[in-house]
């Protein structure tokens, strides 16, 4: 068994208006940074044991699709690191 650190990045779908991102972007402008496309999402880290990176990814992908992200409003990506 190997252990993996998985980082799940969840963000609002590109077509969804993200008021949180807009508010942050306005504040960034106040701070002197003119930024575009600011989006605020979620960052979830977890550790799982699995036989392979592929298996770890598949298992986390399943719960990400079902639970960690809502596909109606969000998209997600996974990053894996073997510990």
């Amino acid at each position, binding site marked *: 068994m190997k252990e993996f650190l998985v980082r799940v990045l969840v963000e609002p779908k590109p077509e*969804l208006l993200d*008021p949180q991102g807009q508010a942050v972007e306005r504040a960034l402008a106040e701070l002197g940074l003119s930024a575009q496309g600011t989006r605020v999402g*979620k960052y979830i880290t977890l550790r799982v044991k699995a036989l392979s990176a592929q298996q770890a990814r598949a298992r986390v992908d399943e719960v990400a699709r079902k*639970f960690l992200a*809502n596909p109606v*409003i969000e998209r997600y990506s996974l990053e894996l690191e073997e510990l």
Partner: protein
Amino acid sequence: MRAAVVVFPGSTCDHDTYYVLKELLGVETDLVWYRETHLDPYSLIVLPGGFSYGDYLRAGAIARFAPLVQALPEYVERGRGIVLGICNGFQILTEARLLPGALTKNLSQRFLCKTVKVRIENNATALTRLFQLGEIVELPIAHGEGRYVASAETLESLKRDRQIVLRYEGENPNGSLEQIAGICDKTGTVFGMMPHPERNSEKLFGSGDGVRFFQSVLSSL
């Protein structure tokens, strides 16, 4: 005729809803713990407002995996009765995919607690049959994640199948797609609404019109 008001960890409107059903309308009503899966005794199941599981991750995202919610698809499939989700209950039903679309953060980024006007968009449903089509009712809202969103295809099918039951009238408080405040599923037995009818069910709290949603449901059973 027996009604269930579901109690999740973090439900806050369960007792108000129980009061309306039991005390105002005289319906045999049980407060049912979220671990219950035997739903056959009930012809009406209300998922009340509140903050189940502290709204962690997304409002309703964790409650949808509660044993009782997991038992709902079979209840609906067998046509056992009506399911009504109010506010957090609506969020749970969309997370559970028993209702299409999703409820996300209000455009204003603020928690809204106020009275709004709601238009009866379809009165040929169990929830609204005692209202006039186009009737405007005042109801309280209290939510941070009430902006209804759905894909273009979902919106199209909601319209085609007359599943849009309530719309905000005038002001769109949370930025919901097409002012949508309440919908039903294709079977017409699962309802979700963001406004709180139980909080305006007596004249003491306003027009008292909220009680008519419960009366509608009860009269259709």
